């Protein structure tokens, strides 16, 4: 997945003249971590593939064979629906994150000078604090007996405010938890942009919104798409948010996979679902790499 980045041509690229008088760190230094990944990362993934074609035997046991039955079971309208709902929710969450985050990134890049990095840091800090607690925090806020509910009921906008355990709550949760991941790349591409182009456009008579649409938006589109995929991909594998804010009334693919291992004990089926999820995601990962590479080439 190492995206091809053009290497600077020059004397350094030629192997004969590469000898530099700095310590060379031997290649075997990678061996401990390579071995670790081999055993504890690639090993489990390989076993996942083996299990997905194994046959369920008794309660939680399997017999090793080549049986595509689990994949045929995944190929079912019921699970199509779960996948479809998950992708739809992730897309909605992504759009909401863009709607919230793009103006903030724009504000930081366009209008701030002294407090620019502080503003950016303040967006990022929540991302470093516990995911679990932030999700729980939203649960308190959205509680049907909480202050927000009382406020909405008092204004008369709603007579019974109860977003908890609905898809709306999950959408808010997704946007809340992943916002920093979108703001960072969008901000980076706004920072690289040449603002004098916008000034030139307005000088030549373009209305501010036209200038934004034809210049700012177009130039930051690669960053925006990178950011969108950066939040969309993990949203698709989300487990904690639908569990806490959706109360499992709105299962994601992750929820269904987890249930196969914790409750139903049908490990081959759970493994097949996991592989299906990875296949679906790999499409978006490929798009992401294409855009990230393109942005690196044009933006830098």
């Amino acid at each position, binding site marked *: 997945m*190492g995206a091809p980045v053009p290497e600077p041509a020059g004397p350094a690229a030629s192997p004969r003249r590469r000898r530099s008088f700095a310590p060379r760190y031997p290649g075997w230094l990678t061996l401990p971590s390579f071995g670790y990944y081999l055993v504890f990362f690639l090993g489990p993934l390989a*076993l996942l593939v083996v299990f997905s074609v194994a046959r369920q035997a008794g309660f939680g046991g399997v017999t090793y064979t080549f049986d595509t039955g689990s994949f045929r079971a995944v190929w079912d309208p019921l699970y199509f629906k779960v996948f479809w709902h998950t992708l739809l929710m992730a897309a909605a969450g992504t759009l909401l994150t863009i709607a919230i985050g793009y103006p903030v990134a724009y504000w930081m890049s366009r209008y701030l000078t002294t407090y620019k990095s502080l*503003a950016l840091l303040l967006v990022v800090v929540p991302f470093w604090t516990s995911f*679990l607690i932030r999700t729980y925090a939203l649960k308190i806020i959205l509680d049907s007996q909480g202050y927000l509910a009382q406020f909405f009921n008092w204004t008369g906008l709603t007579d019974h405010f109860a977003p908890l355990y609905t898809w709306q709550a999950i959408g808010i949760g997704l946007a809340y938890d992943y916002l920093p991941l979108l703001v960072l790349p969008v901000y980076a591409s706004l920072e690289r942009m040449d603002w004098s182009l916008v000034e030139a456009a307005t000088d030549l008579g373009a209305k501010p919104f036209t200038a934004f649409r034809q210049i700012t938006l177009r130039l930051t589109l690669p960053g925006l798409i990178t950011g969108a995929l950066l939040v969309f991909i993990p949203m698709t594998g989300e487990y904690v948010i639908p569990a*806490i804010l959706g109360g499992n009334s709105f299962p994601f693919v*992750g929820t269904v996979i987890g249930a196969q291992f914790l409750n139903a004990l049908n490990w081959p089926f759970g493994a097949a679902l996991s592989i299906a999820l990875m296949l679906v995601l790999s499409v978006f*990962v490929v798009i992401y790499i294409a855009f990230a590479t393109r942005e690196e080439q044009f933006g830098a």
Partner: protein
Amino acid sequence: MRRRRVGVKGLFTGWALLVYLFLYLPIVVVVIFAFNQPTSVPHGTSPCAVDPTRMGNVSVWNGFTSCWFSDALNNPTYVSALKTSIKIAVLNAIIATALGTCAALALARMHKRARVPFDVIVYLTLVVPEIVIAVASLIFFVQAHNNFAPFPTLSWRTILLAHVVFNASLVMLIVRARFVGMGKSLEEAGFDLGSGPFATFRQITLPRLMPAVIAGALLSFTFSFDDYLLSAFLNGPDNTWPLVVFAAVRFGVTPAINAFATMMLMVTVTMIVATGVVLRRGRLQRADGDGRGIGAAIGLG
């Protein structure tokens, strides 16, 4: 025209302030409600002694008490879960930092083609959904223990082994970004002046690399300490703090959860501040090349 621009700026500023409110208000509410009382407290009893089923509505403010913190810390289940979490997080930080730093040193100056397979694996560890890694590791550890005696059964040890995978990648990315960013000239000077490879590494490379190494260690501590998903599938009989909080969040309604959450926040915020101080010292936040490594670290968490 001038006037209008100010208006637009005000609009954006207003939106940004709203977003900051959206980001921070829930966290503040968690902390405040850690000091909340049940709706009605019988005269002469502690607010925390009220039966959870008679708690009433604790989503609104009923009065101040600080008893939930001692209530939480006197609960043996919670305390042992906290100890397990800290044990895992510390060991994870040590192992992941050692693995990641070694790999970063070698990879940064390796030939491009030679490092492609390694890079692919590293990006895979960051891209594969955590739920998939969790169930794959569950299958793996159960089978490994059944077939090879040295592998541990499901316990805090398996959680640790699984945590290290992601965090080694994280440390690797941070340290490598710093290493590539700092250039070779000082090392070359040291070499030129006759110090050997070990002396050069110890006296020049390592001290300059240290901020990134420490930042990687602190971040991997935080990620391990906060992790729910891997722990939930690999814990066996053991319990970690995020598992306790998750169970409480889903099934319980007492402010003791908020007290836990507040304490957990304090741990992570301390770690973040420490990371920030270290990074600032290393001037890592300065330029693009270095900032990208940190961005990747945050972004891919």
